[in-house]
């Protein structure tokens, strides 16, 4: 019996192989686009996104209220069609487009936005968005005193004026507030009666029965694919490609093989730099790239007691040992840009004339001698699975040794790595900082910010960062952030390495794919496949 079944299976395989042999790689059907994704999304609820793959998938189903300009990342109307800010910068009056409908036919109203903000400010909300909303008047009180498990009642600073307009008042000036309004709303008529604590695990997070986005979820086969179909009620117009499959293929090499075989049509973000040259030679494929809103760095732990890294001269000396141009040219093969400071070249406040720490091993040597470094061995940690960071670690070890600084490299898997970061169990770390769209540097650089994991502290910088949020004037903010950036760079709390490029590869048949650093799918409704 067993033998018979085995034989039967063997025959089936041979037949299947035969069927494959006679077929050429699939030609692209105009109504199916297969997009690769590295992991199964954890949720499709836009308020609980904590990783990049989930964010990508969710952005196809949930559009943001605000968009961003491609050139300077300044807020642009999207679902919110216009806004007015009061002279004192405390009151924002928002108007919603009137042609935005949920997929069940209900119009999107200001009530949906007010509900979404209540969820974010509810005590049982555990997503990442409250951090930016606590400056809304009454938000802190709502979080602390609202005792219903439902996100009902009201936040005093959120006032619904009519179906399509609402007003938000802030407790203090918060210049980057508009950028934080790029949230995606939840349908009040569907989820208004769900407890805030239950929203993350609610069926809606998996089924998204009602959506606003360019695509609607048709089927989600766990760990396999998500099948999305065009939403004919999408406010920017029904997408031209009817079916979009988000195919979960957890490794980059396999994604590439599947793209070359015609079984995938688009690899967003996940193309390795060493493969780009080969892809560029293939006339059936197109390669796209743009700077990411993040830089990688070698950070110094300044919280550790008795560490030689508490001495600025040691940090500066180490920063001078690395030639970042060399790293971009040899490790990133040119697909990146040297980072000199914390402002991104994509942000309006970017200072192209900023001079970071120069590459000067001789100077580094004299600074180390001056500081009297001694026999200390520095522990450098980085996470497994990032080849560029691994090579940077090795290069840094070699260069530091030349000025007499010993480095011990420790490779950690991701969770252990984050654990070491939070416990401060390292001297030097290789990691990245997401810059965000606004040049506000508070999250990483204000001494009291929860995101300041390296323990950087400079009172003058703190004051400048607070000042930077007090004015809406772009020129003024630019000057403030450039000044703060210069001070931070002089303190050498870390070595800025590079802004990597996000590299995407797609079939040449895909038209109008113009990736945006904030959202890859912002114009997915315009994409089309030509034969």
């Amino acid at each position: 019996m067993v033998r018979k079944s085995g034989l039967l299976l063997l025959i089936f395989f041979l037949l299947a192989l035969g069927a494959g042999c006679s077929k050429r790689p699939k030609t692209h059907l105009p109504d199916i686009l297969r997009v690769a994704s590295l992991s199964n999304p954890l949720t499709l609820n836009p308020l609980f996104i904590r990783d990049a793959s989930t964010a990508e998938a969710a952005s196809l189903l949930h559009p943001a209220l605000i968009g961003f300009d491609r050139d300077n990342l300044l807020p642009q109307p999207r679902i919110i069609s216009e806004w007015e800010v009061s002279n004192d910068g405390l009151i924002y009056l928002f108007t919603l487009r009137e042609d935005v409908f949920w997929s069940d036919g209900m119009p999107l109203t200001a009530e949906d936005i007010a509900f979404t903000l209540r969820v974010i400010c509810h005590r049982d909300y555990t997503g990442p968005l409250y951090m930016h909303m606590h400056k809304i008047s009454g938000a802190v009180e709502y979080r602390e005193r609202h005792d219903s498990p439902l996100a009902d009642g009201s936040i005093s600073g959120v006032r619904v004026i009519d179906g399509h307009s609402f007003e938000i008042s802030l407790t203090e000036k918060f210049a980057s507030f508009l950028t934080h309004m790029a949230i995606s709303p939840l349908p009040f008529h569907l989820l208004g009666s769900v407890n805030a604590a239950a929203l993350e695990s609610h069926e809606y997070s998996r089924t998204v029965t009602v959506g606003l986005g360019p695509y609607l979820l048709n089927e989600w086969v766990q760990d396999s694919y998500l099948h999305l179909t065009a939403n004919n009620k999408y406010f920017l117009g029904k997408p031209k490609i009817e079916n979009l499959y988000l195919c979960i293929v957890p490794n980059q090499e396999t994604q590439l093989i599947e793209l070359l075989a015609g079984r995938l049509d688009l690899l967003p973000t996940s193309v390795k730099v060493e493969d780009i040259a080969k892809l560029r030679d293939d006339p059936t494929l197109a390669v796209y790239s743009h700077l990411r809103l993040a830089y990688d760095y070698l950070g110094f732990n300044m919280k550790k007691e008795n560490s030689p890294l508490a001495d600025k001269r040691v940090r500066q000396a180490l920063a001078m040992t690395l030639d970042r141009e060399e790293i971009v040219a040899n490790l990133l093969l040119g697909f990146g840009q040297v980072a000199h400071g914390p402002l991104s070249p994509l942000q309006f406040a970017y200072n192209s004339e900023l001079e970071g720490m120069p590459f000067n091993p001789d100077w580094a040597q004299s600074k180390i001698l001056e500081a009297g470094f001694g026999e200390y061995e520095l522990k450098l940690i980085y996470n497994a699975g990032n080849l560029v960071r691994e090579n940077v670690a090795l290069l840094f070890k070699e260069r530091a040794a030349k000025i007499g600084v010993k480095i011990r490299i420790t490779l950690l898997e991701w969770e252990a790595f984050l654990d070491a970061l939070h416990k401060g169990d390292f001297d030097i770390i290789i990691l990245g900082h997401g810059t965000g769209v606004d040049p506000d540097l508070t999250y990483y650089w204000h001494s009291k910010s929860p995101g300041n994991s390296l323990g950087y502290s400079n009172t003058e910088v703190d004051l400048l960062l607070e000042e930077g949020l007090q004015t809406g004037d772009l020129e003024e903010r630019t000057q403030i952030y450039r000044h703060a950036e210069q001070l931070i760079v002089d303190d050498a709390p870390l070595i800025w390495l590079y802004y990597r490029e996000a590299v995407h590869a797609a079939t040449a048949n895909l038209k109008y794919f113009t990736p945006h650093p904030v959202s890859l799918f912002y114009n997915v409704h315009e994409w089309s496949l030509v034969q």
Partner: protein
Amino acid sequence: MKAGSSMQKFVLRRLAETCIVLLGVTLVTFLMMHLAPGQPLQANPELRLDPTAVERWLQLRELDKPLAAQYLAWLSRVCTGNLGISLLHNRPVLDMIRERLPATLLLTGSSLMLGLGAALPLGVIAAAKEGKPADGIIDFISLCFISLPGFWLGMILIMVFSYQLKLLPAAGMVTPGESGMADLFKHMAMPVSVLAAGTFAYYVRYVRFAVLEILNQDFVRTAKAKGVPPALILCRHVLPNASIPLVTLVALSIPFLFTGASVTEYVFSWPGMGRWIITATLSRDYTVIMAVNLIIAVLVSLANLSADLLYLVFDPRVRLRE
């Protein structure tokens, strides 16, 4: 009657032992899991996560309580049949298992059948032709398969059949948007072959050894001397006896049919249990890790028990001690 009651006693005793083993396994798993650095959700500075939200998240899931309290709470939940909710996916673990088990059973089941289906006849041939070229060839093939790591073989197959020849898909179980058995078989071809190669290599040596052992027994020699045709000796006397040790082997491999082959599933992006277990472990999804380990432990214990019971049925030489 007497035999029946001793059998009952045996089964009850084994079940009691199983409970103790399970308790031990869950406790060790629980401790090891918490000894590993990290936790299910950590503030990731690259993504600007809010550390206070992370604290609240841990609080709502009672992960801030002492370990003993967490373990006891887990134990009392499991005793009522509740395996818990995945910390990262916020879904019942049982639902997640249900979604992934069919894919895994399809993969592991067909490779076991294929591997075993090839190992049985070839193992018998190797034994019957001991020392002859056929034996040498089978021995060589099995040695090759057993020495090749599954992930390496998988990658070579992908290089040849997906990258160079573009014949077979390198990832997943189905081509999204396409359906049909042919598509499924194309996706199965490589991962099943990789797993079947390993299974084949493992079993073929056992079969050969078991058959050889029986072939050298006196009763076989007697049958030969009496002029019984070799094919009849093989079918009637050798195979039934040689299959007894295989029963244990096959029974013990049953738990792994359910847990999948992590590496192969990962290499071929197979949407099954094995890949899910790796992801859950790497992301410290405690409830998933505990549930899966418990299930494996239960299955291994039951498989052991059934192997012992099958011995009682098949092999008259095995008797319970009174």
